[in-house]
């Protein structure tokens, strides 16, 4: 079954001095969120999000779900997973790297087993497959 997810953005003005708003998403969970080019391409974001931050959130959440599912399938459901994704964006070049880091609390599983499950989740999650063109996707996985 196909699942469709929708988001809408309004932009006003030119690229450098204008700004946009993610007005609404289909689930109604968030919005309005402000976005702008400086928030995207400069070090200080002024509390505004960016496509790259949203991609980081998408990848971290997709990976967490895939890992949780994989661990349960082998009889070791996790108590807790803490995942971060850091997306590196080089203006003019694009997204050059995504670094995933996960720390898990998984009763009955050793470090090696956890790292194997994490590698499988990284390879198999739909967002990883959609972003397969990113030059470098790294994973740092370990038990808490």
């Amino acid at each position, binding site marked *: 079954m196909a699942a469709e997810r929708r988001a809408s953005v309004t932009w006003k003005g030119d690229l450098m001095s204008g700004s946009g708003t993610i007005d609404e998403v289909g689930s109604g969970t968030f919005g309005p969120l402000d976005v702008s080019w400086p928030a995207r391409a400069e070090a200080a974001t002024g509390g505004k999000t960016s496509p790259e931050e949203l991609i980081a959130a998408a990848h971290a959440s997709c990976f967490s779900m895939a890992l949780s599912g994989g661990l349960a399938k082998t009889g070791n459901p996790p108590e807790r997973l803490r995942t971060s994704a850091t997306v590196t964006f080089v203006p003019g070049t694009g997204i050059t790297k995504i670094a995933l880091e996960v720390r898990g609390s998984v009763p009955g599983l050793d470090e090696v087993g956890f790292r194997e499950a994490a590698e499988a989740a990284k390879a198999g999650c739909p967002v990883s497959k959609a972003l*397969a063109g990113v030059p470098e996707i790294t994973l740092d996985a370990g038990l808490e």
Partner: protein
Amino acid sequence: MPRIERKAEVAWRGSLARGSGVATAGTGAFELPIDLPSRVGDPGGKTSPEELLAAAHAGCYTTSLAGEIARAGGTVDRLDVRCTVTMDEVAGQGHLIVASELDVEARADGIDADGLERAARAADDGCTFSALVRASATVTVRARLSSEGGSSNGG
């Protein structure tokens, strides 16, 4: 060349089917609940990786299009961009993100329908996310000039 890092964190508790997580933006711009039922079924007020990608693609494309319209000599008054991301189960490959559809309404001076069409294509070529997501998805763009306000006759 500046390297910009953007970070988000997810804390997940419990199994895939019954557990849930919270995705937090490094900038503090959002803190969102996520779980599996909201991803594959009725969202029930929770977001999902695909919805976050839809927001990312809409945001990426919008900034790209704002730049392209200016490059074509137009002046953007307002762009409304809607993005729909579809995840589906593909035989032998599991779940894949198979489509991302962009629907654009532009209110801009100094650009006609043909010019907008060209700018919309160039914006797709220039949007980082469009290029990436093509690894598993088809990307489609529909763009039209807004009927209200602005000017659609090149003036």
